[in-house]
């Protein structure tokens, strides 16, 4: 498969997962905000840790104001991670690899793009933001279903999976991290909202009943064996995808992406919650996020760049190039 095609598939998938994560994050927090705050100042205070976790600085919040933050995160063209931007980028990537996609897959993505481009999304938002956010989540889930059901599970599909799960690991870790940014110990509502952001509420209840605590939530989102958004599950999937792509036996590594993933996998496989808490939940998550960024860069170097280019560019430039690809 062409290197660029692999790269486009990877990013298309990442952007769609990102749009979905963002939609749920906005939805959950807007509803939580109703409990917390009723004036603009309080709203800003409420959103600040959430925004910090997704790396938007406070200045931005000052400009937008507390009440409009949800709308900005959905529609802003200036903000590269807004839902609109993610959908546009996903579609732009898809346009470059039309030949790899089924007609059904393309139609689904192009329709949501047209929906945003032609103003349908704004109309629906005015009727109630939940309608729109639901629609976006549903789009992503349908898209995932179609990718599983309508395209060959070959190399291209592995890159889709890789993009999706790298993004998802990132999101779960960021959502969990919001609990570290509140000034006080997280409330029951805070914990519930984090679980909701990860569609983990009912799965969590099955395992822990009503026993809602920071420890249990962290334990579940970090270490669940079989919940498809837990960090352990996601990193296993990434590891498996990488090994299927390269053909190397699991437990070994052929490239840096595999080595780093293997080591992240060892961390989530052979660490327990006590150790995490001792080290600090935020510190653990922060380290994990740094790792994820590096895995993404190494995937790019391994499959998109030529060895000579990595050498001649030097490592930091290659990292920048990976970043530039992301913003394409």
């Amino acid at each position, binding site marked *: 498969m062409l290197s660029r095609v692999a790269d486009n598939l990877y990013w298309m998938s990442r952007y769609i997962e990102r749009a979905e994560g963002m939609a749920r994050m906005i939805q959950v927090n807007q509803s939580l905000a109703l409990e917390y705050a009723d004036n603009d100042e309080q709203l800003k205070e409420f959103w600040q840790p959430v925004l910090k976790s997704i790396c938007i600085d406070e200045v931005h919040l000052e400009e937008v104001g507390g009440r409009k933050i949800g709308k900005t995160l959905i529609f802003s063209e200036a903000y590269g991670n807004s839902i609109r931007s993610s959908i546009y980028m996903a579609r732009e990537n898809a*346009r470059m690899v039309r030949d790899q996609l089924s007609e059904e897959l393309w139609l689904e993505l192009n329709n949501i793009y047209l929906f945003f481009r032609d103003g349908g999304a704004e109309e629906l938002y005015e009727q109630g933001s939940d309608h729109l956010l639901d629609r976006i989540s549903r789009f992503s889930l349908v898209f995932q279903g179609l990718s599983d059901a309508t395209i060959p599970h070959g*190399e291209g599909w592995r890159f889709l999976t890789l993009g999706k799960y790298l993004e998802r690991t990132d999101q779960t870790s960021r959502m969990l991290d919001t609990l570290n940014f509140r000034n006080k110990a997280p409330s029951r509502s805070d914990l519930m909202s984090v679980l909701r952001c990860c569609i983990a509420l009912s799965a969590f209840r099955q395992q822990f009943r009503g026993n809602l605590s920071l420890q249990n939530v962290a334990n579940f989102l970090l270490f669940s064996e079989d919940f498809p958004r837990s960090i352990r599950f996601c990193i296993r999937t990434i590891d498996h995808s990488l090994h299927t792509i390269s053909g190397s036996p699991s437990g070994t590594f052929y490239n840096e992406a595999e080595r780093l993933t293997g080591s992240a996998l060892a961390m989530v496989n052979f660490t327990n919650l006590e150790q995490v808490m001792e080290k600090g939940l935020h510190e653990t998550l922060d380290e994990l996020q740094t790792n994820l960024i590096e895995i993404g860069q190494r995937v790019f170097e391994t499959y998109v760049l030529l060895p000579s280019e990595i050498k001649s560019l030097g490592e930091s430039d290659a990292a920048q190039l990976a970043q530039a690809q992301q913003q394409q």
Partner: protein
Amino acid sequence: MNSHSQFKNYSVDHFFDEMFIDNEGENPRPHYERIFKRLDSLTESEISERRQQADTSFLEHGITFTVYGEEGGTERIFPFDPIPRVIPESEWSVIERGLRQRIIALNLFLNDIYHEGKIIKDGIIPEEIVRSSKNFRPEMIGFDPPQEVYAHICGTDLIRDDQGNYLVLEDNARCPSGASYLLENREIIKRTFPQTFGGMSVRPVEVYPDLLLRTLEHLSPRKSQKPVCVLLTPGVHNSAYFEHTFLARQMGIEIVEGKDLITIDSFVYMRTTRGLVQVDVIYRRLDDEFLDPLVFRKDSMLGVSGLMDAYLRGHVALANAVGTGVSDDKVTYAYVPEMIKYYLDEDAILQNVPTYLCWRESDRSHVLENLENLVVKAANESGGYGMLIGNQSTAKEREEFARLITSNPREYIAQPIISLSRHPTFCEEGIAGRHVDLRPFILYGEDVEIVPGGLTRVALRKGSLVVNSSQGGGSKDTWVLKDF
């Protein structure tokens, strides 16, 4: 005629009408009878609904092109008119022979001017005309392209005058586009008008991608294995990007951008997740000037460094060859009938539109005196740009063109204003006559192959003679009917 007829207000005016023989739009030509009856039985809202269906389908499937000039380029659908254009087999077979003759002559001409230049020595065409063509490539002199063919894919634009004679308006021998619309239009019409289409023995067109692939594979320098063919696109922002992905997908070959290719030791490779893969044939949808920054435009980010070197060594084939643009220069065009005579000793089956060459002094003064009655065209522009239609122009525009012609006569030609034939077309005011042309696609691989018909383009704006998509044109499905 009943008062509900779709055609009750239809008027042929003084144009040649593709569907009707007489003036009032009452008597269709025999090959249009069935379509006429079918259309007449539909209500306006039924037709409108089907057209809406077609538009939605184009938009959803992303069958779009990009219009430049506006901020960042805008994606639009190429408007589709649901009333098909019909050509009887008897007419088509003449067109087919004419196109075949023409592409063979054009290729002999290209081979000649990049080698001995006999046609120049024999005084048929002046050397300075050939050499001064913007798209003459001195790099190609003495080079033998695979199979000695240069223009493998050619789109020749035909129009009909007020007597219904088919005339060649221009040849597009560089990177003609539109084949994807030809194929998609057929798909759409089958879906939106199944009853009309069924049982009409319309000659099929869906073989085009297979023929194109065969044409490409035929050029491969490596005969021992299945050739690796790729389609080279300028990228997602190109106006014809949809077509590029469409054709690549239909042929099952990779669509690549310049950055996906790399040359090593004068061979071309594509970069894949499994390493480098050698490329044999490049169907390039990128103009010569952008192909290789080492040889042509240095600022080209779209090309591949070292591609020309690999090409000239015969390590990779390009379709079309480099330098074919000299044959679709509008000045060269005027000489095609003489080329046909010179190389094939035949008379041209398809006539040219009479053409004044502004570099000839006598022609120039005639043109300058008669700007109001002529169409002036820049010799190397396409897409309907750089053009003056005399009787629709303002005095200011004519002054501007007079100045352009005087300062650079080589680059301008003029032709009488041909009243292009019209075709019933679905418009705001109901069904009305609109001007059309026809672009058949000619493939020259092992043999010359032409899919029946071509892309009919229609000028949707009332009275407009410009059919280009960038200028408000639309398209129609084109049917060649076997039994007429």
